[in-house]
């Protein structure tokens, strides 16, 4: 490991950032779930209903990618490998997305 302090510090900053971004998303997701369960009429638009789910999905994917980066970093003990592996994965995801 090149620097444990660097690794732990980066992880803490990213965790804080993801928690902050997650606050409005979790609020929106909660309202979507409650609205889906409790509203009988058409008062929630489809956009309102799906916004919470979509936000949570994008956030979850970002969380998975971020964790794969940190596990790579931990396993290789080298941030450059983790960066290259992250770039490779993102490239593959983009390729897959453009094919579909």
């Amino acid at each position, binding site marked *: 490991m090149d620097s444990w302090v660097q690794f732990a510090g980066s992880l803490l900053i990213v965790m804080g950032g993801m928690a902050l971004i*997650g606050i409005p998303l979790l609020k929106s997701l*909660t309202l979507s779930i409650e609205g889906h369960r409790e*509203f009988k009429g058409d008062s929630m638009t489809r956009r309102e209903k799906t916004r919470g789910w979509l936000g949570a999905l994008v956030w979850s994917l970002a969380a998975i990618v971020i964790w794969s980066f940190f596990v790579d970093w931990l396993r290789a003990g*080298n941030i*450059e490998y983790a960066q290259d*592996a992250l770039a490779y994965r993102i490239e593959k995801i983009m390729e897959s997305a453009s094919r579909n």
Partner: protein
Amino acid sequence: MSQTPPPPPSADTPQAKADKRAFPCPNCGADLRFDPGAEALKCTHCEAEVDVPHLDDEAAQEEHDLRSQIASGATLETVETPSLNCTTCGASVEFDSDEHSRLCPFCDSAIVADVTMQRNIVPQGLLPFKIQVKEAHELMHTWLLSRWFAPDGITEDSAKENFNGIYVPTWTYDAYTSTAYTGKRGDYRGSGKNRRIHWTRVSGTVSGSFDDVLVSGSQSVSVEFKDALAPWPLRDLETYQTEFLAGFRAENHTFGLEEGYNESQVFMRAKIRDWVRADIGGSKQIISSADTGFSKETFKHILLPVWITHYTLEGERYRMSVNGQTGKVYGQRPFSKKKLAVGALVGFISMVVVGGLISVSTGPNITPYLYQASDEGDWFKD
């Protein structure tokens, strides 16, 4: 402490005589109030019960011809009532001479306007309150406790507040519709990369009817509020009698019959588009034109019972409402930012398993590619 109840107020005051909703107790002369539990009038002083006579329910269910009512103006019975108009939310609430508070029951802001006389169409029917105020409190607490990420102490704060029992004016509309449409039907053909959509021109007619499309006659009650408290058991409508209103407040309609119908048509047209899409069929549909004819348009003017309260939490006011018939609860709800942040953090940490699995399972595939790309040797120590 003395067990003797205080002397009953006089029912012969000029205000009480003028108020058509004053029902003096036959025993002691105090006010009778409609008791949702007993479904009868109950004396506020000696607790004597007086039955509310059940009139012919057909009058409550009678449909009135919409076009002739709009064309002729006021053929339905109207009544002039003293009202207070809220400048904040637009509610027009019937003024109760016994009511000293001038807080709007809908938005909780102070009403500073003077009492004015307002002419309203007399509702033909109403759903009487079945839920008592104590039950409304309990239902609200249960609802608040079931909220995710709600702040601590939410039920203690809301318990201090009083409920207002309000009858909300509502229009219901019926109509038969026939829609001639033209459009395109899209069907997928082929598979994989050869999958293409094939469009065919279509035309046709769809017919259907709408029964009791609800439109709030109140601008202070939003569509969301009305839908969230639905369904309303309209088969249980009682013929309008002022006895049911004793002890409750009634809002005057601020949306007229025609405005209400225009709003109901927005709902109907959205449904008709769904019918047209279903009639076209296929995988995708394009509606080029849809010409809808409405016939046999009828309406009812009714009152729906709602318990409303407001509570304060961290300086913010929140409104809660309970369906006075079914007990369904809807409200504005606060969130605890601390709990949301912890929730997001827990969610993020739980993703380590998936992220770790991806790292471990794809690592061996990525490593040769990275060796080739960077030519920097083995990063893994083992």
